[in-house]
C-alpha cells in the first residue's frame, strides 16, 4: 500500500489522569496517523495508555482526565477543540466505536434492532422509521447475523457473545463512518468466535473501505488485521512500523519481548528471546526511556535520555537509542524437546469413567419442581490423570470443560458414572468429602478478581487454608505465608495488601499460592490464564511449569488456548459439546492425523503469521443441533461424511502409540486432509477444503 493521505492525525498528544491530589501523565507526546482505508493497530500491555489514546479520537473526556497538549486532527479539524454538540454530530456518525465488552455496551432492556435504529434516528441518517428498519436489516446482513428480522427483535441477553459483538459492529457501521475505533473487540470471546469476528472485519474492510484503529494486547490478532502497528509502553509510542516489518524485524527491545511472549503453536519449546521480565511499575519510571528498568540491553544513559521516534527504515520508526547496537534479531524459533512423558502408574491419581454431568435447574425447591430434569452438559466422559501429570482439556466455551472441573471438585454431583481418586470412589459432593480429600484437590479459578475476597488482605486469604488444613498457629502461619509468597515470586510485604492493590497477574499468583499452601496432589486449573495479558500469561506459565517440578503436583488444566496447552500439557483431551473427540499425548495431538474439530481449533488459533489467512472457520459459524444419535460435531464438521455422521456414533480409532480419535473418517485420510502443520513454514491454506456433504467419489465409504 502506498502512503495514504492521512484521514486522522494525532500530534504530540499529552494526557494526564488525576492521581491523588496531582496529575499522572498517561500519554507522552503520542503521535500517529491513519490514512484513508488504512487499519492501524495499537498494542501494548494493559495500562500502557493505548485505550486512552484511542478514546481521544472520539473526543472522550473523563472528569478526572486532563489533555495537556497536542491535537487530534480528523480531516484537518481538531477534535479536542470542538464543542460538545459539534462532537455529538461526529461521533457515532463519522467516527464510531466498537467497545470491548458487548454485554455492557448494549442496553439490556432494549431490543437490539431498536438500538440500531436509535443511532440512525439520532444522526438523522434515515428519512423515516421504515427506512431505518430496512437499514438495520441490511446492517445485520452485512455483519453476518442470521435471520436479521428476528434477531432485531431479540434482547441482548438472548444473543451469544459473538452475536452481541456483531450487533455492536453493526451499530458502529450504521452511519457509514469513515473511521472505526475498535477497543479490544475480541478479547472476551473464545478463539473460534474471535476468528469469525476478525474474518468479518477483514471482509468489511475489503467491502466498504473503512479506516480502523484497532486497540488490543494481542499481537496475533494485529498480525491478521492491521496494515501498520504502533507499540506503546507506559504512555510512549516506542515503535511504529508496517505489520509485516514489525514481526520480521522488531527493533525495540519491548516489541521483541512482546512478540516472544505470545505463546506459539508452531514451536514446542520457548523462543530464543526471553519473554518480558517483570511488570510495568508506574511509580518507578525513569525520566528517560520508560522501558529501561525491564530492558535487557539497556545502558545507564537510557534512564536519563528521552527517547524519540527516529526512522530506522522507510516507514519504520523506533524510540530506542540503542537500536543500531542491538541490530536486527533472528526470529527463528528453537525446537525444544517435548515435555517428558510421565510413565503411567499402576493406579491413576484421578480417573473418570463414563461420567455424565449436568445442571439440575435453578435454585430453590419451587424452581426445582418446575424444572426437575437436569440437562446433560457432559456425556459419557472417561479419562485418567496420573500422579504428577498435566492433563489438558481443551474446547470452546460451552463445551463443558469447566463442568468437569466442578464435578471433580465436588461442586456438582455427576448424574452417572464414577469419579475415582487413587482408585477409590470420590464422594459425590464436597460436603461429603473428608477434610483430607478437600485438601488434596485444589481449585484455581479463571478470574482472580472474583476468586479473592476483596475485603481480605492477602495474608488472611492465604492463612485460611493453613488454619483449616494444616492446623498451624500464628507464627507458623506467618512463616508459611512468606514462603508461599516467595514461591510465586511475590514479596513478603504483599501479605498486608488487599487484592485491589495488586495487578491481575499478581492476583492470580496469590490464587495459585492459596491452592499450593494446602499442599495438594491435584490442581484443577480452570482457564487460569485467560483473564491475563500475554506477557503476564508467559510468566504464570513459567511459574506453573516450575511449581509442577518442585511439588510433583498433577494438574487438570482447562483452557481454550491451544498454544498454552502445548507449552504445558503432558496429555490432552479435546472436548466438544461434552464429548471427547480426541485424546492422547500432547506431542501427538499436535501432529496429524487430527480430528476435524481439533483441526478447526488449530486453524482458528491466532499465532503470529503475517500472511492474511482466508476466514478458515466460517464453516464453524452455524451450529445446527445434530441428532443425538450420531457424532455431536456433525453438521458443523467441514469434512462430514454425509448422513453417516449424523446417524451413527463415531468409533474410537487408535492412532499412534496412545492417541485416540473419535471419527468415522479413516486415519490416513484425516492425515491427508490436514493442512495445519506444526512447523513454522506455516498454516497456509493450500487449497480450500471441499465441502463433503455429497457422497464422495474419490474415497471408499468408511466402514
Amino acid at each position, binding site marked *: 500500500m502506498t502512503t495514504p493521505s492521512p484521514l486522522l492525525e494525532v500530534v504530540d498528544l499529552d494526557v494526564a489522569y488525576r492521581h*491523588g491530589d496531582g496529575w499522572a501523565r498517561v500519554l507522552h507526546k503520542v503521535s500517529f496517523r491513519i490514512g484513508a482505508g488504512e487499519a492501524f493497530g495499537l498494542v501494548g500491555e494493559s*495500562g500502557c495508555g493505548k485505550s486512552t489514546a484511542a478514546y481521544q479520537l472520539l473526543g472522550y473526556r473523563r472528569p478526572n482526565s486532563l489533555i495537556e497538549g497536542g491535537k487530534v486532527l480528523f480531516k484537518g479539524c481538531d477534535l479536542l477543540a470542538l464543542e460538545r454538540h459539534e462532537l455529538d454530530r461526529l461521533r457515532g456518525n463519522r467516527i464510531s466505536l466498537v467497545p470491548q465488552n458487548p454485554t455492557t455496551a448494549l442496553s439490556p432492556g432494549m431490543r437490539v434492532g431498536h438500538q440500531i435504529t436509535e443511532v440512525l434516528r439520532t444522526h438523522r441518517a434515515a428519512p423515516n422509521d421504515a427506512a431505518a428498519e430496512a437499514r438495520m436489516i441490511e446492517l445485520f446482513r452485512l455483519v453476518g447475523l442470521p435471520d436479521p428480522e428476528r434477531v432485531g427483535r431479540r434482547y441482548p441477553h438472548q444473543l451469544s457473545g459473538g452475536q452481541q459483538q456483531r450487533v455492536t459492529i453493526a451499530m458502529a457501521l450504521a452511519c457509514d463512518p469513515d473511521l472505526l475505533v475498535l477497543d479490544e473487540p475480541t478479547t472476551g470471546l473464545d478463539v473460534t468466535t474471535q476468528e469469525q469476528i476478525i474474518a468479518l472485519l477483514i471482509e468489511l474492510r475489503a467491502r466498504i473501505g473503512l479506516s480502523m484503529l484497532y486497540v488490543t494486547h494481542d499481537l496475533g490478532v494485529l498480525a491478521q488485521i492491521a496494515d501498520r502497528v504502533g507499540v506503546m509502553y507506559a504512555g510512549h509510542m516506542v515503535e511504529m512500523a508496517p505489520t509485516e516489518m514489525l514481526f520480521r524485524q522488531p527493533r525495540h527491545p519491548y516489541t521483541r519481548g512482546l512478540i516472544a511472549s505470545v505463546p506459539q503453536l508452531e514451536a514446542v519449546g520457548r523462543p530464543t528471546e526471553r519473554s518480558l521480565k517483570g511488570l510495568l511499575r508506574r511509580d518507578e519510571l525513569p525520566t528517560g526511556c520508560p522501558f529501561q528498568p525491564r530492558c535487557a540491553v539497556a545502558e545507564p544513559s537510557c534512564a536519563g535520555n528521552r527517547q524519540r521516534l527516529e526512522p530506522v527504515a522507510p516507514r519504520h520508526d523506533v524510540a530506542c537509542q540503542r537500536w543500531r547496537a542491538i541490530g536486527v534479531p533472528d526470529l527463528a524459533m528453537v525446537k525444544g524437546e517435548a515435555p517428558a512423558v510421565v510413565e503411567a502408574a499402576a493406579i491413576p491419581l484421578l480417573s473418570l469413567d463414563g461420567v455424565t454431568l449436568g445442571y439440575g435447574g435453578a435454585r430453590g425447591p419451587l424452581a426445582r419442581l418446575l424444572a426437575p430434569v437436569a440437562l446433560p452438559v457432559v456425556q459419557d466422559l472417561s479419562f485418567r490423570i496420573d500422579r504428577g501429570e498435566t492433563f489438558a482439556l481443551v474446547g470452546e466455551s460451552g463445551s463443558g470443560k469447566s463442568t468437569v472441573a466442578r464435578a471433580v471438585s465436588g*461442586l456438582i454431583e455427576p448424574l452417572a458414572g464414577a469419579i475415582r481418586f487413587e482408585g477409590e470412589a470420590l464422594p459425590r459432593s464436597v460436603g461429603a468429602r473428608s477434610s483430607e480429600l478437600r485438601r488434596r484437590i485444589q481449585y484455581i*479459578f479463571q*478470574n482472580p478478581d472474583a476468586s479473592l475476597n476483596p475485603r481480605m488482605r492477602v495474608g488472611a486469604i492465604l492463612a485460611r487454608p493453613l488454619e483449616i488444613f494444616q492446623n498451624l498457629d500464628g507464627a507458623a502461619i506467618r512463616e508459611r505465608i512468606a514462603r508461599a509468597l516467595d514461591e510465586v515470586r511475590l514479596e513478603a510485604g504483599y501479605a498486608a495488601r488487599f487484592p*485491589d492493590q495488586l495487578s491481575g497477574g499478581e492476583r492470580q499468583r496469590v490464587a495459585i499460592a492459596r491452592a499450593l499452601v494446602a499442599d495438594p496432589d491435584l490442581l484443577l486449573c480452570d482457564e487460569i490464564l485467560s483473564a491475563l495479558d500475554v506477557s503476564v500469561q508467559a510468566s504464570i506459565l513459567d511459574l506453573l511449569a516450575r511449581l509442577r517440578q518442585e511439588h510433583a503436583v498433577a494438574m487438570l488444566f482447562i483452557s481454550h488456548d491451544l498454544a498454552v496447552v502445548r507449552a504445558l500439557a503432558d496429555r490432552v483431551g479435546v472436548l466438544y459439546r461434552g464429548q471427547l473427540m480426541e485424546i492422547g499425548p500432547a506431542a501427538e495431538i499436535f501432529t496429524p492425523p487430527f480430528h476435524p474439530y481439533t483441526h478447526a481449533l488449530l486453524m482458528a488459533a491466532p499465532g503470529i503469521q503475517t500472511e492474511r489467512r482466508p476466514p478458515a472457520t466460517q464453516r464453524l459459524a452455524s451450529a445446527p443441533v445434530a441428532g443425538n444419535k450420531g457424532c455431536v460435531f456433525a453438521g458443523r464438521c467441514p469434512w462430514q461424511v454425509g448422513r453417516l455422521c449424523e446417524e451413527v456414533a463415531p468409533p474410537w480409532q487408535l492412532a499412534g502409540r496412545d492417541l485416540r480419535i473419535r471419527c468415522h473418517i479413516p486415519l490416513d485420510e484425516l492425515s491427508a486432509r490436514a493442512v495445519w502443520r506444526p512447523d513454522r513454514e506455516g498454516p497456509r491454506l493450500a487449497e480450500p477444503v471441499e465441502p463433503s456433504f455429497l457422497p464422495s467419489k474419490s474415497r471408499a465409504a468408511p466402514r
Partner: protein
Amino acid sequence: MMAVAQPTMPGESRWERVARFWRRAPNSFRIGAVVLLIHLFVAATGPFWAPYGLSQMGTGIPLAGMSWAHPFGVDQLGRDIFSRVVHGAHIVILLSLSGTFLGLVIGAVVGLISGYVGGWIDEILQRLIEALISIPFLVLALIAIAAAGPQLAGQPILIILVVALVYAPRIARMARAAAVDIATRDFVTVARLRGEGAWSVMRRELLPNASGVLLVEFALRAGYAPVLIGSLGFLGFGMRPPTPEWGLMISENRALLIVSPVTVLGPGLTLASLVVGLNLFTDGLARILGRTVRLADA
C-alpha cells in the same frame, strides 16, 4: 465511614488524611454531616444548657409566640418549647438509632441466611418478609403496639422493638439480594471447597462484602426512623406525656395551631432538619462507597 479505602500518601498524618477525605467528599455528605453533628451535639449536651427544665411551667405567658427568650414560643402550660425540643433531642436520636440498629442486626442475619442457605428456608423467610412488607408500616407498628398490651405502652423499649420490626424485613431483603449476588462469586466457592460451614462463610466472606450495602441501608432507614417515631407519638401510641418527644409535642400543640402556629413549627422544623440531614449524609455516603477511585487504563 473511615472504612472507605483511602490511598495513603507517603508522609501523611492521620489528620491530613481526614482533611483530604473531607475535601473530596460530595457536598451532600458534608452538609449532612454538619447538620448531624449539630443534632448530636445538642442531644449530648442539651440537658446541661437548656434555658428551662423539660417540664418547667410558668416560664412565660402561655402561647406568647416567638421571642428572644422563647425562640419556639411557649405552650399552653407555660413550658418553653425550645427547651423541650433540646431536652427531647437525645430521646429521638437514641430511639431512632437503637431501633434501626436492632432492625439492621435482625435483618442482616435473616437476609444473609436466606440468601446464602437458600432452599426451603429461603422460601419460607421470603414469604414471611413479603407478608410483613405488604402491611403499611404505620399499620404494622400499631398492630404490634396493640399486641404488646398496656404494660409496655409508652416504654422506650417498645418503640425500639417496633422500629426494628418495621425495618428488619426491608433490610433483610437488601441483605438477601447482596448475599445472593456475593454467594455466586468464586471466593465463596473457594470457601465451600475448603469445607467451611455456612456460618463461617457468612461471617468471613459475605458480611464484609455486604457491609457497604448494609451501611447505606442503615443510614437510610435511620433517616426515616424519627418520622416513624414522631408519627407514633403524634397518634398517641408512642412515648407518653410529658416526655418531650417531638412528634408527641406536635400532637399536644396541634389544637393550638391557629392560635400559636410556632408551637408546632419548632418541633416540626427540628424533626425535618434531622431527617434532611440524615438523608443528605446517606446520599453522600452511598456516593462515596459507590465511587471507584482507581487510576487505570480507560
